[in-house]
């Protein structure tokens, strides 16, 4: 894949990110942050190829470590966000 194409994706995504997040109310700032944080664990996808690839011992060790840390980030991030969001209730739903 060439550089221009990847940069194109990058720039559009950044603008999209600005548009999406600009409207989040202050109440949701923490879940937004931890939810976004979980998304940044996408680096797991890159780690998989390192851990399972045809590399040297070093790349497999590094890749496996990356899988561990990225998985903590992803699993922990989504679960903790869900736990927080489950607590947010509107007035009429609270007894």
């Amino acid at each position: 894949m060439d550089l221009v194409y990847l940069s194109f994706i990058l720039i559009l995504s950044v603008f999209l990110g600005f548009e999406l997040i600009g409207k989040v109310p202050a109440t949701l700032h923490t879940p937004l942050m931890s939810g976004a944080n979980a998304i940044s664990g996408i680096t797991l996808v890159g780690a998989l190829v390192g851990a399972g690839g045809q590399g040297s011992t070093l790349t497999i060790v590094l890749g496996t470590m990356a899988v561990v840390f990225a998985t903590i980030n992803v699993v922990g991030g989504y679960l903790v966000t869900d736990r927080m969001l489950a607590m947010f209730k509107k007035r009429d739903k609270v007894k």
Partner: protein
Amino acid sequence: MSTNLLINLSYTVAAVLFILGLKFLGSPATARRGNTLSALGMLLAVVVTLLDQAIIDYRWILLGIVIGGVIGTLAARLVAMTAMPEMVALFNGFGGLASLLVGWVALAQPRLDSFLLLTIFLSILIGGVTFTGSLVAWGKLSEKLPGRPILFRGQRPANAGLLLANIACGALFVLYPEQHFWLFLAVVLSATLGVMTVIPIGGADMPVIISLLNSYSGLAACAAGFAINNNILIVAGSLVGASGIILTNIMCKAMNRTLGNVLFSGFGAAGGATGKIEGEVTALTTEDAYYVLEAAQSVVVIPGYGMAVAQAQHVVKELQLLLEKNGCEVVYAIHPVAGRMPGHMNVLLAEADVPYDLLLEMDEVNPRMETFDVAIVIGANDVVNPAARETPGSPIYGMPIINADYARTVFVLKRSMASGFAGLDNPLFYRKNTRMIFGDAKETLGRLVRELST
């Protein structure tokens, strides 16, 4: 070829799920669904990547996912809501470390051109800064490290030198990729830079630095995406990077400071002259406070970090119910930087079952502040400091605050007369309409609840 097509089509679907997920996070009613969608996108991206022909051995992957999954699940289930800021910081740091490692692994690719090397260097640099920076933030938030800014002589030149060293190291790394020395130096320098960036940040500025590190973790993933030629990493990483930057910006605006000022000034260490404060402190017993509250028609609660420390959110909610039963209106006024991370107070009050539509933002509550009979300030200090409005010499002058002093009566629940994290004296405590109720916020509120319920 068809596998590759399947992988890339699935990545597109995953990207759409991330985007929809973030969009749904924009409203409390849909936020939970949004998070689930985003998690599904992640699952899809991971599962489909396993089909990649470059992967020949699944044992290590399985091992890594099981270990990481167990740790992540336990951490997310067991953490107390009050410990949420440090948990988020820690997860964030792990994401950064993973990106650093992915960058390192990418060095083993057969064809490395300068651009690829540059992106590998960037994923190591940003990943390393995110990792150690988040660890220091975690230490500060969990009070394993002192929360005050750590400053020393010549800090700015030292940091500038470190930054230059990083850039020089990056250039040498790209020029001489076969010499591993530059790789190791890059790892060490980026780790040092992360530590040095966060140690001068004081407790009250943590919301800014947490949002900034959140942004970095996205940018690190993005750089790793360039390093391994993977578009889903670039899309997801830049979405996170952008969202973190917006949050950082919101936090800075809420303190009327620039990002550079937060990062480099070591705010609060110097203190500073606030001018002479006139008037005297009037203390109040809980019995007297009870009589005032019993007669009140409307009450606004202004929580701060002290409420989190005292774990007083549940008893605040009890007080709210009793006051409401008494025919009194109760709302909460939340300053954007109250607490240690963006939205900290909202999460704590949500934990105590306070409906989110009672939590008002600063701009909603200030215009009607005069109409409240009582403003109860619980463990907040700088965000209600009138010096920000009135004293041009004050370091926080110009910062938007919640105008608690405009309420008819102000109760300030406070342990002692010690100043806030910014190290400033607060003229609010000396106002004629202010009553100080000294003691642990949780105990004080507990006593008020007992009096009101009899």
